[in-house]
C-alpha cells in the first residue's frame, strides 16, 4: 500500500512540475521545474525496481545535461514580450505536434497487453541485478544500436564545435610549458640603487 501512495505522490508531482515547465514565466524557474520532473521520474524508476536506470537518469540528466541547460538559460537575455508575440501564430503547429504525441500515447496504452508480449522477448535473468541485466544485453544483442547512438552523439559534438570554432586572429594562447620553464634570471633583475643618484636606464634594461 505505501508503494502505491508513493507512486501517486511521484506521479502527481511529476505531472504538476511538467505543467509548470511550460507555464512558468521565468525560464530559469522552468528549467528548475524540469529538474524536479527528472527527479520524480527517477523516483518512479526506483519504485519499479530499476534503480540503475534511476541513478543514470539523475547523474546524466540532472547532474550534467540540466546543469548546462541552466547555465545557458541563466545567461540568455530573454525578452518575454517578444517571446509571447509568436504565440498565436505557432499555436496550430504546436497543437498539431501535441495532438500527434497524445494519439501515440493513446495507441500505446490501448496496445499495452501486446507490448508486454514484445518485452517478453528478452526476459530479464532473475538472478542478475538490473545493472548486470542491462549490461548483458546492451553489449551483446544491442551492440550495434549502442555504437550508432555513440556515433550520433560524436557527430553532434563535432558539428557544434565546427559551428562555433572560428579563427579570430589575435588570440593569446597560454603555453604552459614555456610558463613553467621560465627562469628567475629571465624576468628578475636586482640592482643596487645608490642613494641620491638613481639609475640611468630606469631599471628597464
Amino acid at each position, binding site marked *: 500500500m505505501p508503494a502505491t501512495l508513493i507512486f501517486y505522490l511521484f506521479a502527481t508531482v511529476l505531472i504538476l512540475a511538467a505543467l509548470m515547465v511550460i507555464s512558468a514565466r521565468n525560464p*530559469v524557474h522552468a528549467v528548475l521545474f524540469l529538474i524536479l520532473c527528472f527527479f520524480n521520474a527517477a523516483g518512479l524508476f526506483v519504485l519499479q525496481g530499476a*534503480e540503475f536506470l534511476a*541513478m543514470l537518469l*539523475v547523474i546524466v540528466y*540532472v*547532474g*550534467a545535461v540540466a*546543469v548546462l541547460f541552466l547555465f545557458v538559460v*541563466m545567461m540568455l537575455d530573454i525578452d518575454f514580450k517578444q517571446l509571447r508575440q509568436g504565440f498565436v501564430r505557432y499555436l496550430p503547429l504546436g497543437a498539431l505536434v501535441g495532438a500527434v504525441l497524445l494519439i501515440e500515447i493513446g495507441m500505446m496504452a490501448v496496445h499495452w497487453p501486446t507490448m508486454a508480449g514484445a518485452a517478453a522477448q528478452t526476459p530479464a535473468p532473475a538472478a542478475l541485478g538490473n*545493472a548486470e541485466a542491462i549490461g548483458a544485453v546492451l553489449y551483446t544483442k544491442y551492440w550495434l544500436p549502442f555504437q550508432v547512438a555513440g556515433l550520433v552523439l560524436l557527430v553532434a559534438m563535432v558539428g557544434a564545435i565546427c559551428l562555433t570554432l572560428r579563427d579570430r586572429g589575435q588570440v593569446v594562447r597560454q603555453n604552459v610549458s614555456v610558463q613553467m620553464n621560465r627562469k628567475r634570471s629571465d624576468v628578475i633583475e636586482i640592482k643596487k640603487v645608490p642613494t641620491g643618484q638613481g639609475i640611468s636606464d630606469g631599471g628597464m634594461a
Partner: protein
Amino acid sequence: MVQIVVYALLAVAIIIPVLVGVAYLTYAERRVLAAMQMRKGPNVVGPFGLLQPIADGVKLLGKETIIPAGADMVLFIGAPILTFFLALSAWAVIPFDAKLVLADINVGILYLFAISSLGVYGIIIAGWASNSKYSFLGSLRSAAQMVSYEVSIGLVMITVLLCVGSLNLGKIIEAQREGWFVFRLFAPDGWAVGVPLLFPMAVVFFISALAETNRHPFDLPEGESELVGGFNTEYSSMSFALFFLGEYANMILLSAMTSILFLGGWLPPHDSVAFVPGFIWFALKIAAVLFVFLWVRAALPRYRYDQLMRIGWKFFLPVSLVWVVVVAAWQLFLMGPPA
C-alpha cells in the same frame, strides 16, 4: 509506522556525528593551518579552544538575515537548504562498519556520484538568485569547475568498479581485504611482482575531490581577491551557515568516498588490530584524508582559472579515460574478470 520512526532515529544517529565532525573540522582546519604557519590558532574558548566552533555557531545564528532587494526570494533561501540537504543525504548509503549501514543499496556508488553531482545546483541557484555580479560569476565558475571534474571522478570510479565487479559499497570494501586499492599490487598468475594499477587513479581522485568541493588550490568560485566572496557574497547569518556546513560536510563526504574506494573503508590496516571496531578505522582514515585537504590548503597557492580547466580536461580526462581501458584490458587478459 514504527519502521519510519526507527529510520528517522537512525538518520539522526548519522547526522549528529556528521555535524559534530563538521564543527570540529572547522576547528581542526584553523589549528592545523595555524601550526603550519607557526601561529597558535583558536586557543581561548574552552580547553585548547575546543569550544570555539560552538561559540562561532552561536555568533553566526545571532546575526541578522539579509535578503537583497532584487533577489529571487524562494530560490535565494532554497539554495543553501538544498546544499545542506544534499550534503547530509549522501550519508544514507555510507557503510560505517561491516553491518553498520542505513541503506545497503545495490547501486551505492552511483547514488553517491549522483548526489555529489547535484551539489552544483545549490551553488548555481544561489549565484543566480542573489542577483549580484560577484555571486553570479562565482556560481558560473563553480558550475563549470564541478561539471568538469565530475567527469574524471566518474571515470576513476569505473576503474575501481572494474576491479570489484559490483556497485555496492560494502562489496567494494570487502574486495580490499587482500590490500587497499591505493597500494594494491595487481599481480597476474605466475608474475613475481604486481603493478600498483590503481595508485595513479587514487591521486587523480583526490585532486578531483579538491576541485569538486571547491577547496584550495581550486577555490576559485569564492576567490575573495576577485569576487568578494563568490557565490555566497550576499548570504548572511543562517543561510550562510548552511552553505558553510554543507561545504564542510561535502569535504568529509569526499574523504569518506576516498577511504571507501581506495583506503579499504572500515577494514583494519592489519589483522592483528582487528579488535578495534571498524567505524574507528573508518573515522581515522577519513581524518587522515581530511588532514591532507588542510595540508594542501596551507602548502599551495590558488590556481589560475585556465590552468584549472586545462588540467581537468586536457590531463585528468585523457589519463583516466586511457586508464579505464588499461585496467579493463589488464583484468580481462591477465587476471580474469572479478568474481
